Structures are given as C-alpha cells and as structure tokens.
C-alpha cells in the first residue's frame, strides 16, 4: 500500500545514532531504508515514491510523550483516543503513553486492549498505555501487572495519586521485578498534601487557598528511592516539580539506582504567581511552584538528570474549569503546543541545543518505557517528525484538535512548528 518516502535536504538529528548533519532519509514499506548525505530520487519514479523537500527544516525521530491523559474510556467529552491522537500527530508526536486513571481504570488486559483498539481505529499516532499499579487506583491490592504487560502495557502507575502505603508500594516494586516493566509514580503523600489545591507558599497564603507543600512530593520520592534499594526494578518519577526532588534524583542517580524522571512544560515555565487571579487553567497537580523550583528543574535538564520531557496533557471541559479555584479539577492541556513550550523553556535560554532537546523527546523517553523507538536507525519503523525550527506561531486553543481548551498558554508566541508527522511511513499530519 504505502510504498515509499524520500525526505531530502533536511538537517537530520538522530541523537541515538549521534547524527546531526544535512542528510536524506528514505523510507520503504514503513521502514527506515537508507540514511545518507545524498539519496538520489532518480530511478524511483513510477514506484509511487513521495519526495519531501525538508530544506531548512529538522528531520528528527518521531517525538514521544510518555505522559498524556486521553480520558477514554469514561470521559469522552473531555478527550478521546481519536481526538488526542489527532492532537498528538499535529504536535509531532508519533508515540504517546496514556495514563490509566480513566473510568473504568485501566487495570486488566482487556482494558489495555481496548486502548490499543481505539488507537488503531484512530490511525494517527502510536498509543501505548500504562496500567494501574493497584486495582481502582485505590492503593490497596495489586492490579494484574503480568497480564497487562503481556497485553502490551508499557509500565504501571496510579497517576493522579501516589501509592500511599509504603508496604503496598514495596510489594508492587518487588512483584514487578518479574517483568521487564517500569513502575512510575506520581509522588504525592496525601497526608502532607491534605486538601491543597496549589503550592503551599506565599501565593496560597495571599489567596487564602489550601496549599500542597513541596514535601508531599519529596517525602514520597525519598521513600520510593529507599524502596528501590530493596526491590531493584526500573522506577520512574513522573512530573517532578521541586528543587528538593531534583536533589533526590541527583543523589539516587549518583548511587546508581535504576531511576528515571520526567518534567512537564508547565513546571519549566510557570510559577505559583500565575494562580494570582484564580485562573483555574493554572490549577495543576503537582502544582506550579516557585521560581527557584523552575530554575532547579531547568538546571536538572541542563545537568542531564531528566530523562524525558512529558506534557502531562490533562484535558478538561471548560464547564469543569469554570469553577471556583477550590473546586475545579487539576490539569493543563498542553500536548498540542508542547514542542514550542520546550523550545521556549530550554532552547531559547540556551539550556539545550536542538539535538539535546530532541534526545529528551525521542530516544530517552523510549528507553524509560522500554520501547524500540526514538531513532532513525536503518530497519526501524519509520516514525519521523519534520520541524521548522524558526517558524513562530501564536498558540490558539480554538485551533486545537484536542477536545479541551484548558490551556494557559493561549495567546503565547512560540517557535518551533511541526511541519510533517510521519507514523510508520505514512504522512499522518501536514501543516
């Protein structure tokens, strides 16, 4: 059916293979066939070959976002796997990982297969899912990790909340050592967090809103680091948000523990001060912290401590967000503008160059979840993103393919526009 693509004249960045130069790529039958400085398009006429001129553009492995909420099953009014997938490819993502906190929770092999089936029907991006660590995300009984892993779940998390009971978490980590999977944690000790709705700090005091102390995150991350010393399984700290967490990650990595972590764009760009007008689009969990935390997270990226940039795309209906700050749900929908946000947070201030940014959006997150993606190596499935690095655009939520509009970046001007997204050799998005 699909026969071939030839992408010419682009700047090819493939961190996994150490390539950053002007290079052509040919794709045959959905597979990367050739990567050379010059691939002639002669002799391919009549073979249903499409030639893409990528002059002035970046040709990179398809971007990967290992933390999205597509809300299906259960909250299809907010997002579906189809709408989320459309948003993903428009944003350059050829693989995403859905979180299991749907309704019902993704907690058995049938649930995992359901997500995969919906993704196949949507035919946009590769959709992976994590399964729940505990049944119903209740933090009590282990979910069927083995069956879910067999069905293709790429990891386990109770995201939305952390596993509160250390004994349960230890059990989960130990049990998971049987399988080659990652256990991911939304680090938040609920007893410390209480009923908090934003960072505990000056702003929460002024606004008269209950705060979530940064210790809620750090205490659980510290606990988990102790646990993985006992049960050596790949552990992934999701959306870390505080300077204290950065130091814990640094120490754990220095100790050689199998720990990875991710950072979300809002924690690299926004602070608790954004909540000053009670705009619920800034209500997110973990909450926006102080400038010193933003600085620490950016430094962590610069120091190579961060393994993945992940949007934590959390769509919500406008009617749900149109509530008093105390009552509105947590979450920011940012998948569709994520690349531009990372450029603003990391490239523009000179923290990363393009190859380093692409590395954090391709090979490194692929390794976190253990999938064979994120490279343009010969013989790999042809997931490719073509980016115009200098194109500026204004973020406009009304153009989102995502169903939700809870995006605080509306109106921001960002750089780095996705030009084409190729998934398995097929052009699934064109600007």
């Amino acid at each position: 059916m699909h026969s071939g693509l030839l992408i010419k004249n682009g700047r090819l960045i493939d961190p996994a293979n150490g390539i950053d130069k002007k290079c052509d790529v040919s794709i045959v039958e959905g597979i990367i066939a050739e990567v050379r400085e010059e691939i002639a398009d002669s002799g391919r006429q009549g073979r249903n070959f499409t030639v893409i001129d990528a002059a002035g553009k970046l040709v990179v492995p398809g971007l990967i976002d290992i933390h999205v909420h597509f809300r299906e099953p259960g909250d299809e009014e907010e997002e579906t796997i189809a709408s989320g997938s459309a948003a993903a490819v428009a944003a350059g993502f050829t693989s995403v990982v859905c979180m299991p906190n749907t309704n019902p929770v993704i907690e058995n092999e049938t649930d995992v297969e359901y997500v995969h089936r919906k993704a196949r029907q949507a035919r946009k991006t590769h959709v992976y899912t994590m399964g729940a660590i505990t049944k119903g995300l209740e933090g009590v009984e282990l979910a069927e990790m083995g069956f879910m892993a067999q069905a293709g779940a790429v990891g386990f998390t109770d995201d939305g909340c952390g596993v509160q009971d250390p004994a349960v978490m230890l059990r989960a980590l130990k049990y998971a050592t049987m399988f080659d999977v990652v256990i991911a944690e939304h680090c938040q000790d609920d007893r410390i967090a209480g009923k908090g709705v934003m960072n505990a700090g000056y702003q929460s005091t002024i606004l008269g809103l209950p705060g979530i102390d940064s210790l809620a995150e750090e205490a659980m991350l510290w606990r988990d680091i102790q646990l993985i010393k006992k049960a050596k399984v790949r552990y992934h700290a999701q959306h870390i948000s505080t300077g204290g967490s950065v130091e814990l990650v640094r120490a754990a990595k220095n100790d050689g523990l199998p720990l990875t972590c991710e950072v979300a764009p809002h924690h690299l760009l926004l602070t608790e001060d954004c909540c000053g007008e009670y705009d619920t689009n800034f209500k997110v969990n973990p909450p926006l912290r102080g400038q010193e935390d933003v600085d620490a997270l950016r430094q962590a990226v610069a120091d190579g401590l961060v393994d993945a940039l992940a949007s934590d795309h959390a769509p919500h209906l406008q009617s749900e967000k149109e509530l008093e700050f105390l009552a509105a749900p947590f979450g920011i929908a940012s998948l569709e503008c994520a690349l531009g946000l990372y450029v603003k947070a990391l490239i523009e201030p000179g923290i990363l160059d393009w190859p380093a940014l692409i590395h954090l959006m391709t090979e490194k997150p692929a390794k976190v979840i253990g999938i064979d993606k994120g490279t343009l190596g010969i013989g790999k499935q042809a997931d490719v993103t073509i980016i115009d690095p200098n194109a500026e655009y204004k973020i406009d939520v009304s153009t989102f393919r995502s169903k939700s509009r809870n995006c605080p970046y509306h109106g921001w001007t960002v750089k780095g526009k996705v030009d084409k997204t190729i998934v398995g050799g097929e052009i699934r998005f064109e600007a």
Partner: protein
Amino acid sequence: MPITANILVKKKSKQLKWHRKHLLGLRELSAEEIGYILDTAVGFEQVSTRSVKKAPPLRGKVVVNLFFEDSTRTRNSFALAANRLSADIIEFTKKTSSVSKGETLLDTARNLEAMGIDIVVVRHNAGGASRFLSRNVNACVVNAGDGFCEHPTQGLLDVYTIRKIKGTLEGLKIAIVGDVAHSRVARSDMWAMTKLGAEVTFVGPPTLMPAQAERLPVKVSYCLDEVIEKVDVINMLRIQFERLGGNPFPSIREYSHYFGLTAERMKRAKGNILVMHPGPINRGLEIESEVADGRNSVILEQVTNGLAVRMAVLFLVNQAAAQRVD
C-alpha cells in the same frame, strides 16, 4: 431635613472618587480608598440613630444575600444594611457549595442575575469565589467572606472601630491572635491595618500560621505573653474547628494556656487596650468571659459599626455601577 449620606460624602472627600463596582478584598485597595469607605460609613452611622432608620439611596435596587456557608451576624448585618438603604433583599442560603451536589456557583449566580438583581453579597468556602463571580456576572459583587482569603467588610469594621476610638491607626501596635492560617479576617485586617499605618503582629502556634508568613507585611510571634504588654489593640480570632485539618494543637486546654486571652493575661496589657473579636465567641477557649464582657472589650461595638460600614459599601458599589452606565 435629614442629612443624607451623600452630602456627608461630598464634604469629606475632595479628590478621590470611588470607582469600584465590586468589593472583593482589601488587598487591592489604597489607604485613601479604605479611608473613603470609613468616611462614608460615618455618615451612615447616623441613620441608625434616627427614629426612622431608613435612607433612600438603594430604593428600587435588589440585593441578594448569597450565602454558601453558615453565617448569622454577617448575613443579618448585610440584610439590615440593605434594608436601611431601602433596597429589596433576597436571602439565598445554600448549605452546600459542592459542585457534585447541585448547580455550580456560576449557574446559581447567572440564574439570580436573570431575575434582575443589582448587588450580590456572597459568602463561599472557596478563596477567590467572589472574584470568580465578579468576572462572570454584571451585578456588583460584595465579598462577605471567601474561604480563608478575605472578609473585607469585617476588616473595614475593625479599622472603623479602632479609628473611632483611637482617632487613627497610624503607629498603633495590633496583635491578631489565633488561627491565622485559616482566617480571612486576619488577612483582611492585615491589609487594612497595615495600609492605615498600624504595626500588626500575628500570634499563634506555628501550626496555625500560613505558609511563608514571613513574607507578609506583619511580624509573627508564637508567644502571646511577649506581645500582650506592647499592643494597643488585640483581636482574638475564633478557633474554627470546622476548618482545622488534623489537630494543630494537642488540646483546647493547652491552646488556651498559651493563646487564650485570660483575665490574668489582661493584667499585663496596657490599660487602654482594645479587645476585639470577630465573633462568634468561643467563651473560655480563645477568650475568657470576663475579658469578653470587660471594660476593654469593643466586641459589640464592632457589630454596631459593621452595619454602618456595610451600608457604606453597598452604597458605594451601587453608585460606581450607576456611574458606569452613564
């Protein structure tokens, strides 16, 4: 010929013109604006002493008391204030403000607005609720307490009471004692008192202090005994059991021992100290009866003054709204 408040207002203020159609908090007000409300309230205080306790400025206007939390004195005070200004008043009390149990705050407000109301007086358990409403309705919004963010009319009546007795707040030392973390009164008092030149100290156990209190324009003390001798005014906050998370102090007995305003402690206070309390009082907990009813107590005067202050607020926001239409 009755003296209308209007005339008094014109006399008192030459330059400043009130332009806010909402009163959401005292944080955003200037000292001049606060002074302007207080001056306006002076005029309205006299209305309550007349045989016919009514003035006409809100005739034909509808005020809604939209209360999502229990309240007796604030709700009644607003109702009476609206009555004295000849407004019609609707009481709308909802025990629950939980979205899961019914229509949202926004829907409720829009429904009320569809009935043609002019001023919403709102109390809600969520900080920022009144600000949220003000952005979404055309009516004037007056905050009657939002979570532990602000309770601006309480703050105003507190400074009104102090100013009336002490003449000025400039240079006064004021202690606000108790559960500061969960107190909207403490926050509104802090803004109003510091803007008017007083030095404010928050006193209470560390477990009842808000996050990063050191960044607020106040001093913080954990020792009432050190503070009591120095202050001109002491405002005892009510321990709000319904808002406390966990147990921030081991027992009522121990709390009272360290932070209760006892007759014994009062012996070391200045002779002319003003004892205030936003009410309702937990007698024997944060304040002993003897002190609450004693000669330094202005607790009931606060209630009386609250009426004049609320009349002034309703009058001013309505006037600002009317001017905008013109």
